[in-house]
């Protein structure tokens, strides 16, 4: 059962990802990425990480990707016109790179012991539920949390400064 689910969503994720790089229109690419994100969210649920799964949808799909789509619409680009290709060689470099990267990753993973996924719990306090995330975030991981908030602040200021028109 779980394997079936995994294969379905993994196929969806990989398919969307391949579509992402295959498409010339950025809007299709963005929508493909949303597909990948949704598939990953489903996979997170199978890993008993409900909260992260929900956040994946709310933050990634609901906010970040909307921003992307928004910008794509704002710039209203048409097809990615074929131009004079400046770095044709990169295209041929990418394939061996990808092969090597994949090979290395799989080589690393070959030793992974296939331990069992702990059984999920309906408890509100199970790992992956909201309570555990919140508790850890505001105790052990408080400093990263605060630093992240500062990062967000910097990003807000930076984005405003960058996107503001000179005359505005």
């Amino acid at each position: 059962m779980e394997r079936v689910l995994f294969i379905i969503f993994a196929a969806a994720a990989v398919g969307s990802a391949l579509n992402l790089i295959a498409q010339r229109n950025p809007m299709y690419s963005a929508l493909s990425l949303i597909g990948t994100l949704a598939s990953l969210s489903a996979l997170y649920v199978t890993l008993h990480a409900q909260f992260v799964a929900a956040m994946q949808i709310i933050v990634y799909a609901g906010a970040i990707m909307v921003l992307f789509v928004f910008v794509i619409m704002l710039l209203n680009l048409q097809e990615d016109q074929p131009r004079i290709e400046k770095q044709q060689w990169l295209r041929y470099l990418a394939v061996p790179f990808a092969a090597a990267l994949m090979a290395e990753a799989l080589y690393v993973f070959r030793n992974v012991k296939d331990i069992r996924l702990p059984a999920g719990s309906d408890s509100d306090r199970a790992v992956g539920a909201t309570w555990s995330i919140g508790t850890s975030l505001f105790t052990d991981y408080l400093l990263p949390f605060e630093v992240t908030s500062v990062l967000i602040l910097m990003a807000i200021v930076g984005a405003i400064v960058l996107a503001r028109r000179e005359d505005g």
Partner: protein
Amino acid sequence: MTSLLLEWLVKIAVVFAVLITSVAYLSYMERRVAGWIQIRVGPNRVGPFGLLQPLADGLKFIFKEDIIPIKANKLLYLAAPAAAIVPALMTFIVIPYGSEIVLFGKQIALHVTRINVGLLYLLGLASLSVYGIVLAGWSSNNKYSLMGGLRASAQMISYELSLGMAIIGVLVLSGSLDLVNIAQSQSGYWFGFLPRWNIFLQPVGFIIFYIAALAETNRVPFDLPEAEAELVAGYFTEYSSMKFAMFFMSEYLNLITSCSLAVTLYFGGWNGPGVNSHPWLSLVYFLVKVFLLIFLFMWIRFTLPRFRYDQLMWLGWKFLLPLAIVNVVVTSTVLLLAS
């Protein structure tokens, strides 16, 4: 296992049927309310009191010509209505519309399913619902549509924040993201007569939630994405026939979901006098409360004028969001001091 699956399927079918019917009759209701408020008649020819009007409308939608603009991006043009209506339909499954009843000798909980992050599920789907509008606006290859889509996405992103922030107050009080838990936590009375509804603890939160919900559903006074005076019909200018109907339906579905959520979060859900002895009453209470809130929506629609775009942004970012944050801080502080 099988019976559980069966129970699910039955519940889903029933809820789906009820929702679709409600949507049809909400359009009827809206027109009647409009007529009543504006001192005119409204639909009254088809069937008694015009009650068959929605049926006629539905048939008309089906038989209208389905136009696809030649310059449109066909795939997305077709996908957009689906992207709008699917999340709208999916949201309702976590909303508890009654307590447990006994039917055919079987305990049946009156909610389709129960997720311990139910509220997040709702918010996630709500945030996805923007894609239908955005894609519709973009794929139509029409300036009005594009403007409508842009406005819609900006507006929904902006008000989603206030919405989420307003809900946090309730979350802090009930200590759960499970909507069934939230509804149950509001049973009983204070001082023997005052229902333990969150509206009494979170009045500010409710007002913010309600305003944000208005904006999220793109209803007047927040209907700028489809402002007919400026943008013809906004993102669905180019849509016709059943695809138009799907946008129409998704809007009413969102309306129902928002009001149901408001009832669950702030008005005690299905709770009311006599629920424990007569569980059927819980369903009645829930429907009545939702109906009243929907009526309020309509009342507002035919009472207030539309906002200007900058006013809308001002209200969302500079008034509602800070107010919601203050609400969260105050609630948490009081709770901390009280405990």
